[in-house]
């Protein structure tokens, strides 16, 4: 009996391992022709997409981290037990909500609203800063970043909350015993959780890099580099989604795969870093 179970589970594991290796393997295999042929000019050519991916994800993280941390703190500190689980559920629902809906809403609801209010204000009053030097556009780096941060914050928030809420109450007690208030308690707990916060940030960054549809709908599709966050741009997944259909030559197809490989490597690196951070934190 135990042999059979073992065999069965091993088959499953082998299938899974070969799946992973086939995926990564085919990715590398398909990328090689263009990497060999073009070497660094390949990535220079696609610089707008690489730039766009980094900008959108970084800005998204900058927006998401304070938000996610704040939410995690509030849920853990201030909400009574019963209400807490409701908000945690809402948080998790948000995290697994279909990304296409975020994108669609972002393009037709949030976009026009922000363009006529916040973005317009940023351009009018702060337009001398290169970051806001162009007029609001239907799609832009900033819009995509905001939508992306809304999407990854719940995920990051639950990661932080996991660690933050498990800090034993004795820490709270000690701080109160010293005559200090809530603010100091939170500060200390944040200090304890900083590994988790960093780890959550990195994991969320990796996730944000790979997001396709929501960003494709809101980033504007312009194959260019711009220092202004309000101008349209492109990211790697959006570029692949746009161009893969008509990529004719082996070189074109291979280039897109090479780009995808780059994305994958960046994502995996960040995930690994995040894991190391969180692991060390737990000890």
């Amino acid at each position, binding site marked *: 009996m135990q042999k059979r179970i073992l065999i069965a589970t091993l088959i499953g594991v082998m299938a899974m391992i070969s799946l992973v290796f086939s995926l990564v393997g085919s990715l590398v295999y398909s990328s090689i022709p263009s990497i060999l042929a073009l070497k660094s000019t390949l990535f220079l050519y696609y610089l707008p997409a690489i730039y766009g991916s980094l900008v959108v994800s970084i800005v998204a993280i900058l927006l998401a981290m304070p938000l*996610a941390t704040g939410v995690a703190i509030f849920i853990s500190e201030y909400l009574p037990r019963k209400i807490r689980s409701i908000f945690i559920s809402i948080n998790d629902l948000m995290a697994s909500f279909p990304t*296409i809906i975020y994108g669609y809403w972002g393009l*037709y609801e949030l976009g026009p609203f922000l363009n006529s209010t916040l973005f317009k204000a940023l351009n009018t009053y702060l337009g001398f800063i290169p970051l806001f030097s162009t007029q609001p556009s239907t799609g832009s780096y900033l819009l995509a970043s905001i939508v992306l941060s809304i999407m990854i914050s719940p995920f990051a928030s639950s990661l932080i909350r996991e660690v933050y809420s498990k800090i034993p109450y004795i820490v709270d007690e000690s701080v109160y015993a010293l005559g200090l208030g809530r603010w100091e308690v939170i500060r200390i707990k944040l200090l304890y959780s900083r590994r988790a916060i960093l780890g959550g940030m990195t994991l969320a960054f990796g996730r944000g890099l790979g997001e396709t549809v929501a960003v494709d709908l809101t980033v504007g599709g312009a194959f260019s580099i711009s220092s202004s966050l309000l101008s349209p741009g492109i990211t790697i997944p959006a570029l692949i989604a746009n161009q893969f259909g008509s990529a004719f030559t082996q070189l074109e197809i291979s280039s897109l795969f090479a780009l995808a490989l780059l994305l994958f490597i960046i994502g995996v690196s960040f995930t690994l870093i995040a894991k190391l951070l969180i692991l060390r934190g737990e000890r």
Partner: protein
Amino acid sequence: MKSKVIFVLTLACLLFLFFPFSWILFDLIVKGLPVILSSGINFFTGIPPIPGDGIGGIGTVIEGSLFIVSIATLISIPISLLTSIYIVMNEGKKLSRISRFLVETVLEFPTIIVGISVFMIFAVGLGLGLNGLTGAIALGIIMIPYSTVQTVENLRQAKEQYLEVGYSLGLTDSRVVRLLISEGREGVTTGILIGLAKIFGETAPLLFTTVTSFNIYLRSINSPVSGIPVLIFNYAFSPYDNWHDVAWGASLVLALIVLLLFILTRVTTRRR
């Protein structure tokens, strides 16, 4: 006082995060519900309208989504389940740790890349073509790590509770595994449900593995059917107002499906 400030700040964060979501829900209902109601039952059975005129229905893509997701589940459950059991039962062993690591790597694999890889290998390479089956393969691949990670977590908890008890009672390995699975049923189910919720809403992998048109009903295993998110994606990019309306209606349907799956997940996770 500083404590008051931090209270207000974090409360603001909460509102800031949840407000957009409530806005989305509001829009879904306000923009999606009238569309569904205006078409009635036909929204769930009919074919999408031509550009510019009418509402029609999204019956073809609802059927398509259900088909694609169920085939994907068929593909992914065996692998996911078996892998999870192995990982949990052989914790500490090298293979178990490697598997764990690989699963988590694939978890972060951008879904668009899974889509184009499956396109090259299956649709073109093996000649399967663009249809529900190829789409299901792509979604199945994506579902595996999600279900596995979730199931591993849940089985671990069950294991802690039952493994010691089982061995101390002198049960054989197979009995213990059986006990684990029967008690960890909920964990397994939760894992599957989480995977389902994830792939129901996935668009990118379907873009290149199945068709981006929505007038075909399922007739055979490789009928060119598509999924709800693909419809929303296509109609979102279009300039036609009636297609935008259909997209809102479809978004509401999709949101309700995901919500339902999510509630089921909560219900099957008794222990928290």
